[in-house]
């Protein structure tokens, strides 16, 4: 039994998709939940043992299509000593779950999962102690197995339900409570099918987009053609022919609501409004120059060793290069959707946010409500890979609901999602390095230019509060764009710097592996250039500068898995192989990727073969990790080959899948993935790490195929073709 089957049964019995979820005040009447703590320091915040022998776990982190819904129960079941099918999971609900921070930065398992493990370990310790009194046996002779505490040597035990009352544990999380020895794991590290897939494969799963609440209206927002324009006038009569359609105008915020969804769509299209002003400081073709010309607000040295300047100045062989990563969109398959029910003094929001707790506070501020009078429920949306438009749609719905006094569902259009989702910002990265006369790296300098995230900004500013002129914290957030500029190699004289820029033309947010794919492209392409300059094979050359045995193993194993054949000079025959390596965020997951490409005479690049090794420490859900690694690789091949947000001085012009192409089935390469499990190491994230070396491996393979270094993403056929024409490359 889990959330999905219960929802499914509910749907079956009612034949409708209405789900009425009470607000805080009503929940109080239900006894047990009234006492439910959400204090992250308390065991009861994370789990409850139920009288029927099941356990409910409460997670402030949410499954974004990443498989946490299998992994969290695995962790809890293992640690508690319960069969996994006895675990129910509640995710993201701000009234019932502890605030564990947002589900981002690949921290679902390393942070959220480990808090849960510690809570369960504390609970087990308490259960054993209680049982020891009941059974009159020392705690050391007991263990929690299959829902009861029993003597390890055999004999009668006592069930969890008989050890614990409705009050719960009333215990603080004990950081020292012993966790189970990985050698004894029976559920962690094993394949557990994801509980949501049967409902997803049969159309029964209730996504955010599918939810209805009683009495709701359908809302659509109308945003100006020119970003930042002010609303001058609205002609409400232009939608008079649509029954029940109403305009919601709040300063520069413009929306329509209607009882019927298609009517709301039509009304949004038909509504006549006049706007003035606004505009962008550059268009997308000028973005690279714009980034380079922007005033540097500060420069920060992130890593330093030896004396780069002196070593570089005196070295006999020098190389340099500049790399560009464009603005990209989250481009979720389902445009963002949310429902809000804003009443006098309280509000409920249903949303697919990665950070329901954070945004609950944000929504409360913008609606002028006390934080404890606003509840956010989490429902799955389409994959978001960072912060897309989920929260914006929720803010849109909230303001419209407040204005009309009814629940409002807002569904963004495809054009809205592509145009308005906050973007992964553009980056310019430069590299300088030098080799000694005998071909050793003696100096390395990475310089990154990226917008500076506002210090301690809790949430990303949303569109609607700006338009409405409601309260919200200002600033920009991007994720840690400057991570990954440090080469993962032993270099004697090193300087890694970031030039912080004030801003970036389109509103930024974190997009999967913020900054790290571009930074790794720069570092790892450059490592290849250095290998060539030193007359060495790229794999051998890397290994010569690697001392971390886990990193070495990842690279050595990928070379074997891929059947790497040594080369120094590029083949230049249209087929090429390349490698890329990273340790994510400098101290997390190790990933090595080897890739084979075909470059055709018209400049089209096809990735034909990929091999990857991935070491994220202890693996909880092997198939979950594998599916994330597959997704990282495929999505990033698309980001590298095709994706760039296009805009003119007015607005984003790449507003559909034709103008913002992503990877498709014919582009699918053959993939071999080897997961390196280290049960005794702490688990690290798997949601992003494998994205980082993808662009680098691809670029290095293109170089092998053509002798051309692509340093500007995306590697479109047009770009490749003109580079080939320029350097006179022909093959076939």
């Amino acid at each position, binding site marked *: 039994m889990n959330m999905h089957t219960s929802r499914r049964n509910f749907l079956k019995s009612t034949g409708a998709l209405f789900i009425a979820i009470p607000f805080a005040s009503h929940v109080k009447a239900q006894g047990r939940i009234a006492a439910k703590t959400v204090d992250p320091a308390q065991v009861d915040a994370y789990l409850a043992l139920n009288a029927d022998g099941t356990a409910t776990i409460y997670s402030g982190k949410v499954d974004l299509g*990443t498989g946490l819904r299998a992994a969290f129960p695995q962790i809890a079941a293992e640690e508690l000593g319960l069969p996994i099918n006895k675990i129910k999971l509640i995710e993201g609900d701000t009234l019932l779950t502890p605030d564990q921070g947002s589900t981002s930065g690949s921290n679902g398992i390393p942070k959220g999962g480990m808090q849960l493990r510690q809570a369960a370990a504390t609970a087990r310790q308490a259960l054993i102690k209680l049982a020891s009194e009941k059974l009159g046996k020392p705690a050391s002779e007991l263990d929690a197995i299959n829902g009861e505490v029993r003597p390890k040597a055999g004999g009668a035990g006592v069930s969890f339900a008989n050890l614990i009352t409705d009050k719960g544990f009333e215990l603080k999380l004990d950081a020292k409570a012993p966790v189970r020895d990985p050698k004894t794991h029976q559920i962690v590290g094993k394949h557990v*099918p994801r509980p949501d897939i049967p409902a997803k*494969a049969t159309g029964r799963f209730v996504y955010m987009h*599918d939810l209805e609440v009683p009495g709701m209206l359908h809302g659509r927002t109308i945003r100006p053609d020119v970003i930042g324009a002010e609303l001058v006038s609205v002609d409400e009569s232009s939608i008079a022919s649509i029954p029940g359609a109403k305009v919601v105008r709040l300063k520069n915020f413009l929306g329509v609501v209607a009882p019927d969804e298609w009517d709301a769509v*039509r009304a949004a299209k038909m509504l006549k409004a006049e706007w003035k002003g606004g505009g962008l400081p550059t268009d997308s073709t000028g973005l690279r120059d714009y980034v380079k010309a922007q005033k540097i607000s500060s420069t920060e040295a992130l890593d330093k060793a030896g004396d780069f300047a002196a070593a570089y100045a005196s070295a006999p062989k020098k190389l340099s290069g500049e790399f560009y990563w464009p603005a990209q969109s989250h481009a979720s*398959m389902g445009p963002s959707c949310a429902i809000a029910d804003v009443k006098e003094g309280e509000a409920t929001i249903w949303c697919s946010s990665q950070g329901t707790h954070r945004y609950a506070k944000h929504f409360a501020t913008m609606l002028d409500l006390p934080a404890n009078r606003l509840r956010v429920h989490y429902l799955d*949306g389409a994959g978001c890979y960072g912060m897309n438009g989920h929260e914006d749609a929720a803010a849109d719905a909230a303001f419209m609901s407040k204005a009309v006094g009814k629940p409002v569902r807002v569904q963004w259009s495809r054009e809205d999602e592509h145009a308005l989702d906050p973007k992964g910002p553009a980056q310019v990265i430069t590299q300088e390095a030098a080799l000694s006369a005998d071909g050793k790296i003696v100096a390395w300098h990475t310089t990154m230019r990226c917008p500076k995230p506002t210090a301690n900004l809790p949430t990303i500013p949303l569109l609607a509060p700006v338009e409405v002129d409601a309260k919200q914290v200002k600033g920009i957030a991007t994720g840690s764009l400057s991570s990954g500029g440090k080469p993962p190699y032993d270099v004697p004289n090193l300087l890694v710097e970031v030039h912080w820029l004030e801003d970036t033309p389109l509103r930024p947010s974190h997009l999967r592996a913020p900054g790290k794919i571009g930074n790794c492209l720069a570092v790892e392409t450059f490592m290849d250039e250095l290998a060539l300059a030193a007359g060495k094979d790229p794999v051998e050359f890397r290994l010569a500068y690697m001392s971390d045995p886990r990193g070495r193993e990842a690279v050595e194993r990928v070379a074997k898995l891929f059947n790497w054949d040594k080369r120094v000079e590029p083949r230049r025959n249209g087929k090429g192989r390349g490698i890329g390596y990273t340790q994510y965020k400098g101290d997390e997951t190790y990933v090595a990727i080897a890739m084979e490409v075909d470059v055709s005479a018209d400049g089209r690049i096809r990735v034909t073969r990929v091999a990857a090794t991935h070491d994220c420490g202890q693996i909880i859900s092997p198939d979950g990790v594998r599916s994330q690694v597959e997704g990282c690789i495929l999505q990033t091949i698309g980001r590298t080959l095709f994706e760039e947000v296009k805009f003119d001085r007015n607005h984003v012009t790449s507003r*559909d899948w034709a103008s913002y192409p992503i990877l498709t089935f*014919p582009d699918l390469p053959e993939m071999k993935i080897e997961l390196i499990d280290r049960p005794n190491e702490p688990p690290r994230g798997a949601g992003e790490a494998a994205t980082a070396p993808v662009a680098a491996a691809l670029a290095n393979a293109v170089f092998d195929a053509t002798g051309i270094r692509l340093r500007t993403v995306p590697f479109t056929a047009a770009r490749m073709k003109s580079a080939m024409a320029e350097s006179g490359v022909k093959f076939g």
Partner: protein
Amino acid sequence: MASITLTVNGSARTIDVRDPEKPLLYAIRNDLGLKGAKYGCGLGQCGSCTILVDGEPVRSCTVPVSAFAGKKITTIEGLGSPEKPHKVQAAFIAEQAAQCGYCTNGMVMTGAALLEKNPKPTAAQVKDALAQNLCRCGTHERIVAAVVKAGGARG
């Protein structure tokens, strides 16, 4: 207001249509409460909204509901259920072929239509049939494996 009778998953369903241009997707999701087909683009570009009409995959987001009078429509709910999944659905479950799963409707429906014509497709034929279906999560390899498996051919 005109009313239109559609045959959906074997039953006749009559719906009132104020705007004859209303796409079928809005009718099946909102008027009939069948939410398996998803709104992805409304432009016919992604395939999330795919249903079967007389066995052929159709993108329900761009075709007006009025065009479907008298046609036999199958939605993903009609194809199978968690208890009795269609062989394509069963293969998606076995292969764990979904991340977020928002694209899954389109993949399952297009895959099921392919098997009707070509009962044992190869991986290359599956990729070809799904060439116009988009997945942002990068679940492609599993999706191909699932459709091939449902057909029983060797990938």
